[in-house]
């Protein structure tokens, strides 16, 4: 790894006695005319922000159209993920579907399950009573590379299959009722995508009946991005991303689970006894410190804010604790508001770095009382080959050089 940069890297040039040229000398932005409004009818980030981009993890997959790009959590703030940085997971590539040609169908696995199978256009869906809610989406395989040992250097790669948006759409329940679905007989529904993979997943009827599952078209105030399922995707709060079927074209009401490829060959969790857990869906309570984090370096001793994200597929975050000594002692972090169900919660905690080695951890608790497990606790039950649903406490080791690396602590 690298050595710590000198004082120059502080962004604080040793000011001459007089002062800092950035203040004493006229800067172009203060002494000239800037660019007009609507120079960008649709705006983009500063050119100085290009480091914050979605990236693949080299070697994770062989083909980029059945792969993942990770969100750069190491440089993000608050809870909203800008849609341009939303993580991607495609199985057969992404499409920019013409919304005028997109259709959504509801049918029954057996005729008696749905009185009138129906077809909806976007015109139809967008006329129905909508809801807007903020939710996290996490891939079931997030942190999957780290089940057995440390594998990746930064939080982008260890936890970056995680995003959070305000979604707008129609409760799936409303649509099923509109078709006369038999919601007593229904035990599961199948959601199917309009993409090449025609991605299919069995969806818990409990979440449909609760009104939480939505057929969404809106994401952070605008339409879904093509990479995220434009023009329609399923939103299944608290459940792993693969169930949030993108480019959604059909929902079928049934009474048996479907054992589709991505719930019979992948997104199944291998236990130490050789059995696979099937239909594992809920993303249990988890958290991670995003700043400072792996691959970063502290340039100075002194005051720092330690910031991170916590979330639970079972409801609201109730508390987050942070340790600076690898989990021996803990302090309670401040939670940012709003604290919403099945949504990211941002936490912050102050830290005075004295220049000595430290190990930073965060441990989240949700409203059910569940406390995020350590690697020791998780592996004791589930071993190391589960791939999915790794919600262990993450550790970042701060060296005396200020360099931060990914380590695992039991």
């Amino acid at each position, binding site marked *: 790894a690298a050595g710590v940069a000198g004082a120059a890297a502080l962004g604080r040039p040793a000011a001459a006695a007089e002062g800092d040229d950035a203040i004493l000398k006229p800067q172009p932005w203060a002494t000239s005319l800037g660019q007009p409004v609507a120079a960008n009818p649709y705006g983009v980030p500063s050119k100085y922000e290009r480091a914050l981009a979605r990236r693949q993890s080299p070697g994770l997959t062989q083909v980029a159209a059945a792969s993942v790009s990770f969100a750069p959590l190491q*440089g993000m703030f608050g809870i909203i993920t800008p849609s341009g940085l939303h993580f991607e997971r495609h199985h*057969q590539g992404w499409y920019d579907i013409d919304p005028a040609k997109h259709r959504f169908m509801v049918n029954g696995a057996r005729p008696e399950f749905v009185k009138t199978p129906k077809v909806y256009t976007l015109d139809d869906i967008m006329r129905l009573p909508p809801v807007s809610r903020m939710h996290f989406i996490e891939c079931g395989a997030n942190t999957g590379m780290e089940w057995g040992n440390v594998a990746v250097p930064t939080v982008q790669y260890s936890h970056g299959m995680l995003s959070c948006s305000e979604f707008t759409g129609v409760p799936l329940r409303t649509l099923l009722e509109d078709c006369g679905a038999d919601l007593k007989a229904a035990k599961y529904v199948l959601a199917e995508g309009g993409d*090449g993979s025609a991605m299919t997943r069995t969806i818990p009827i409990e979440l449909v009946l609760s009104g939480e599952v939505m057929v969404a078209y809106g994401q952070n105030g605008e339409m879904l991005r093509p990479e995220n399922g434009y023009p329609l995707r399923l939103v299944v709060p608290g459940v792993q991303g693969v169930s949030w079927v993108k480019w959604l074209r*059909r929902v079928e009401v049934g009474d048996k689970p479907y054992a589709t490829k991505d719930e019979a060959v992948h997104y199944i969790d291998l236990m130490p006894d050789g059995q696979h857990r099937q239909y*594992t869906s809920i993303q249990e309570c988890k958290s991670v410190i995003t700043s400072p984090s792996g691959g970063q370096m502290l340039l100075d001793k002194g005051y720092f804010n330690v910031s991170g994200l916590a979330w639970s597929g079972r409801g609201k975050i109730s508390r987050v604790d942070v340790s600076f000594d690898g989990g021996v002692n*803990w302090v309670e972090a401040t939670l940012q508001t709003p604290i919403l169900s099945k949504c990211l919660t941002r936490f912050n905690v102050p830290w005075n770095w004295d220049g000595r080695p430290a190990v930073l951890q965060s441990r989240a608790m949700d409203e059910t009382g569940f406390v995020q497990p350590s690697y020791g606790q998780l592996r004791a039950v589930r071993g190391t080959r589960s791939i999915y*649903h790794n919600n262990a406490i993450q550790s970042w080791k701060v060296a005396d050089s200020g360099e931060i690396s990914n380590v695992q602590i*039991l």
Partner: protein
Amino acid sequence: AESFPGVGRPATPAEVKAWDIDVGPDFAGLPKGSGSVDRGQTVWESKCESCHGTFAESNSVFTPLVGGTTAEDMKTGHTANLRRTDFPQRTTFMKVATVSTLYDYIRRAMPWNAPKTLSDDDVYAVLAYLLNLAEIVPSDFTLSDANIAEVQAMMPNRNGMTTAHALWPGPGFGTEANKPDTGNTPCMSNCKPKAEQVSILPDYAWNAHGNLAGQNRAVGPVRGMKTGPDEAEA
């Protein structure tokens, strides 16, 4: 339920037929038809082997489809190699419990670059070929809607799945557990004698993800460490 005059319209039978292509573990939705291993080999060689390899053994785009299962597994319905921690990979046939899954998936999604272009009989055929490669059916086998249930009874990992876990909301499965199997206590001080570090980032992995300095903002509380090669300039 509220009513929404003017919104949506009934689906025609042809429309439902066009899109309702799912095939469940009970073979609901399975189309009538059949295909032989021989015919499957033809389909495979023209439409599949470029990606998956002649014997579905290729690692180049994906984990191999076949391998790692035994005749013994076909009796127990458990892939024994899944219990070994030293077994190098988990092929599709080592994991899949339901043959319906393969029929359904190949029909909807393969070939990868031309999904939904196989006829139903071709799906039977190519699946028969894969079942033969996996040593589940003989080379003169013809798979059909009539005998697929018999194949199911031979799937090596057919008993390999459990729903006894708390990661499905509500009582969807008869056998499940509803209590989380892991957890922790919110201890605040002296929670353990020491922090036991069991894994660190291997040296080669530091540089495997490019130059981390370029993946962090150039201002702020921290900088990215200078590691591997810079990304190509945009």
